[in-house]
């Protein structure tokens, strides 16, 4: 896997008579020469356990032998001591196997271990100082696998030290998250120690440690409600209310302890089969080493990423047949943890990540999973003893837990999209049905999913389909087409079709849909450019509209535009309507129409007219709103274009974030009677606007400048306050529009529920920004 290439799977342009612009170098390989030993060993180590055809103990022994024999080579020494720590961090699924190699090396050439342990422990110290807790965890996991060759209590001493730190932190603050993280690390390290050194002494030490962690692990964390992926309706409980990761771990470990630590999913490549009794003896009697002290920094820090408590999320736990480990089993946590580290560490090569996910069963004990690509329906026919865990379900589950991670996962969401895409490309027959079941679960539960996550689901779903010919079994949701637009399922369908069209075009998407859906894509969506309403004689100010468009088209100077605007103003005054709003509507609509050929056109047109637009936007709240209205109504069939244009208008400060929020959430402009709240594109518009504001503020704060920071902070708070006020009245049903008797068709409860869901999302955003601000204040 080391030299994994970037070959594309598409088979286009096989004939390379003319070099095309897909310049992946695919020249025929030169004849292989025998690579030098360090290079060969590197290659073998990197490929450890990848092939299910090789037997673990043979592979481990042969590599260890080669290392021990060639260890006098300086280059080999250096490369080995560099590679092991790096592999432990970059390919965590292979850690037990690397450890097994090291253990066999120890039985042959014990002095190697002293150098290696020194290397690992000092690297651990370094990472702890930086607050890179995942790296610390990965090093400790490796050391745990080496426990059998460590003197005395070995790694337990380090875990004890970690625990005492955690206690201090937790006592100091109930909102502390580093302590929680440390306890998580301790609990995830214990099983590896017990798999490597299952002695009574280890069991006892583990029991003592777990007695102590119990208090912290069992206490629900203060921030848990904030990051719960579900947002249950009132009077019902979140399905994951009791699934905080560390409390689960604590229970699962206690369960294992009660059964003499079977830890049946963990691989034990250091255990030799019976015929290798000699090697086993050598291993058992190999020299033991003192683990160098790992001292933790005096003041532990969060590191580059803010920490939050974690909740165990699965899209498959509620099935009648187990296709993933149940939350009662330690396997659920151990496997998830290893997969998540793999996914998040290997962000720089999604192909390799996907490969690891597909091959997950190679890295756990034989029999942990059912054979790959076993159809779900066949799980029922399994005997009671055999595992029914589908490796592809476990893999997909892990990626979904990241897609649904609150407040945000480690990487951009599109990374997780791309991992699923690649996995689906590598093993479509195995992965696609698993994804299908995940999609159904998410769809059926969209009513109680956090609204931000519903949107992540929508975005992933449509992006994924765009990579696979937009194929989805729409027939199974046919009954939902008749639901009111505000129903969460219908809202999802409408949002999905719009997103699909944005990545493709209306006609193409229509072709993928069964009859009942056809009506959802009207003729206006198939039109290349929307009509210009002022081309119709009946539209008021039709003549002025046409005239402005003609002027804009030939890039006439502003002096020629002003007279037309003046004419509109005076006519509007005669009809006693707001002159500025009227002229803004005509002008902005004309800009949209003139620029309708492409985003470049409209943006160039806005650039040319920005002074006029800035003046209009600055003049009154009503005019600002009218700019947005004009854009959205011109592009009503393609809200994605409208959103991009508004985003650019925000960049020019032609409209303000407050104006966008106001436009979307107060009043009827984005849809009557609160229907706006159910529209995916309205959420997208508001969400993007808020993200724009908060990320700008973060940039300013991180930049360390003081000028204007207070104003920016105040503006952000004001924005959140305004959203809160607007949304509360929807959520509580006190909005005037809601009270309107015309709208009382049972939709009220739906609107209230949408209001609640919106409210939760933006209250969380606000809380997280406040946390960031107070954090940066204390650290500066």
């Amino acid at each position, binding site marked *: 896997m080391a030299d994994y290439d970037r070959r594309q799977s598409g088979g286009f342009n096989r004939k390379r008579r003319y070099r095309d*612009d897909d310049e992946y170098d695919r020249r025929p390989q030169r004849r292989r020469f025998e690579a030098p030993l360090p290079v060969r060993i590197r290659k073998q180590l990197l490929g450890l356990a990848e092939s299910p055809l090789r037997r673990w103990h043979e592979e481990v022994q042969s590599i260890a032998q080669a290392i021990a024999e060639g260890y006098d080579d300086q280059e080999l020494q250096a490369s080995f001591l560099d590679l092991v720590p790096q592999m432990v961090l970059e390919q965590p699924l292979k850690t037990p196997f690397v450890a097994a190699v090291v253990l066999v090396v120890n039985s042959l050439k014990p002095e190697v271990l002293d150098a290696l342990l020194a290397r690992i422990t000092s690297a651990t110290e370094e990472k702890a100082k930086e607050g890179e807790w995942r790296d610390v965890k990965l090093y400790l996991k490796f050391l745990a696998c080496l426990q059998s060759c460590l003197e005395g209590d070995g790694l337990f001493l380090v875990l004890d030290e970690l625990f005492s730190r955690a206690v201090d932190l937790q006592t100091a603050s109930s909102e502390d998250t580093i302590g929680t993280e440390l306890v998580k690390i301790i609990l995830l390290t214990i099983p590896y120690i017990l798999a490597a050194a299952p002695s009574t002494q280890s069991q006892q030490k583990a029991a003592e440690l777990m007695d102590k962690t119990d208090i912290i692990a069992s206490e629900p964390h203060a921030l848990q409600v904030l990051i719960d992926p579900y947002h249950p309706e009132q009077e019902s409980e979140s399905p994951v209310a009791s699934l905080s990761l560390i409390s689960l771990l604590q229970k699962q470990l206690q369960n294992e302890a009660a059964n003499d630590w079977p830890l049946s999913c963990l691989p034990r490549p250091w255990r030799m089969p019976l015929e290798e009794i000699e090697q086993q003896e050598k291993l058992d009697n190999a020299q033991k080493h003192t683990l160098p002290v790992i001292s933790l920094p005096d003041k532990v820090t969060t590191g580059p990423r803010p920490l939050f408590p974690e909740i165990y999320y699965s899209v498959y736990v509620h099935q009648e047949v187990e296709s993933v480990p149940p939350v009662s089993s330690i396997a659920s946590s151990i496997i998830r943890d290893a997969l998540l580290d793999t996914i998040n560490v290997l962000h720089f090569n*999604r192909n390799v990540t996907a490969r690891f996910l597909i091959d997950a069963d190679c890295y756990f004990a034989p029999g942990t999973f059912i054979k790959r690509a076993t159809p779900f329906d066949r799980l029922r026919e399994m005997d009671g003893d055999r595992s029914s865990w589908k490796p592809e379900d476990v893999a997909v589950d892990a990626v979904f837990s990241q897609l649904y991670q609150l407040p945000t996962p480690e990487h951009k969401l599109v990374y997780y999209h791309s991992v699923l895409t690649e996995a689906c490309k590598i093993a479509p027959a195995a992965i696609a049905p698993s994804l299908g079941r995940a999609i159904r679960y998410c769809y059926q539960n969209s009513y109680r999913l956090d609204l931000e996550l519903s949107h992540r689901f929508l975005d992933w779903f449509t992006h994924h389909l765009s990579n696979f010919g937009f194929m989805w079994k729409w027939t199974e949701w046919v009954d939902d087409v008749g639901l009111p637009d505000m129903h969460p399922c219908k809202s999802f369908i409408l949002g999905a079709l719009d997103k699909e069209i944005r990545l493709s075009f209306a006609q193409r998407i229509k072709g993928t849909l069964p009859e009942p859906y056809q009506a959802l894509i009207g003729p206006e969506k198939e039109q290349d450019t929307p009509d210009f309403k002022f081309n119709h004689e009946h539209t008021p100010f039709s003549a002025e509209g046409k005239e402005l468009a003609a002027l804009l088209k030939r890039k006439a100077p502003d002096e020629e535009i002003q007279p037309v605007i003046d004419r509109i103003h005076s006519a509007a005054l005669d009809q006693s309507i707001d002159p500025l709003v009227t002229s803004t509507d005509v002008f902005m609509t004309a800009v949209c129409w003139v620029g309708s050929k492409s985003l470049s056109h409209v943006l160039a047109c806005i650039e040319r007219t920005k002074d006029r637009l800035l003046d209009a936007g600055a003049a009154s709240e009503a005019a600002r709103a009218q700019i947005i209205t004009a854009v959205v109504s011109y592009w009503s069939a393609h809200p994605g274009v409208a959103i991009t244009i508004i985003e650019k208008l925000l960049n020019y400060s032609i409209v303000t974030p407050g104006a966008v929020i106001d436009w979307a959430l107060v009043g009827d402009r984005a849809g009557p009677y609160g229907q706006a709240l159910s529209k995916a594109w309205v959420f997208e518009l508001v969400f993007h606007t808020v993200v724009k504001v908060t990320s700008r503020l973060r940039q300013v704060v991180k930049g360390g400048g003081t000028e204007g920071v207070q104003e920016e902070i105040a503006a952000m708070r004001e924005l959140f306050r305004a959203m809160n006020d607007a949304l509360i009245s929807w959520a509580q049903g006190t909005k005037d529009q809601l009270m309107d008797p015309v709208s009382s068709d049972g939709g009220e409860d739906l609107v209230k529920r949408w209001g609640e869901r919106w409210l939760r999302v933006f209250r969380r955003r606000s809380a997280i920004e406040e946390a960031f601000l107070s954090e940066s204040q204390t650290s500066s």
Partner: protein
Amino acid sequence: MRTGVRSTVDRLDAPSAYYHSRNNKRRRNDHGRDGKDGKDGDTEMQDSKPEEPPEDPLRNATTLYVGNLSFYTTEEQVYELFSKCGEIKRLVMGLDRFQKTPCGFCFVEYYTHQDALDCMKYIGGTKLDERVIRTDLDPGFEEGRQYGRGKSGGQVRDEYRDDFDEGRGGLGRAIQAERMRDSERNREKDTHHEDDYGRLR
């Protein structure tokens, strides 16, 4: 790569072999004008100084070359997909020199280098408009920069292609021209286009 230590697996955010080979070539014969190269060397670039500074011009690159697009893929589609990696600062569609219609490539500029790297990692090699697209870091668009195109005005790769690629005008143009010399093409005829098409700030 970025950390200075070689990773145990290759990185997808490294510039392609194309970029390096082109740069080496330029260094060797001073003026790297050769249209045969895949992505069509720049026909005009600021006169290359004899001694280039060792600084990597892609170190802070925020622009990506995007290739293998369909001729029918719109800016809006590119926006929709590429915004998933960050806000787009500017998008420049590559246009056929004569017809002024999209000819299958574009440049996407982000606000940050990280966004561009993420785009390499997460979007390069995935599909847009049902074609596998290709991304490559690019030192950036400068006013007046010309993108080498073939005799027919499109990308060189579309001159002699002997596979039928519907999204890129069917057969290679040189071949097509031979075969259908007299048949009128009406599809891409576009009567009005603006000078500033594709120039976006």
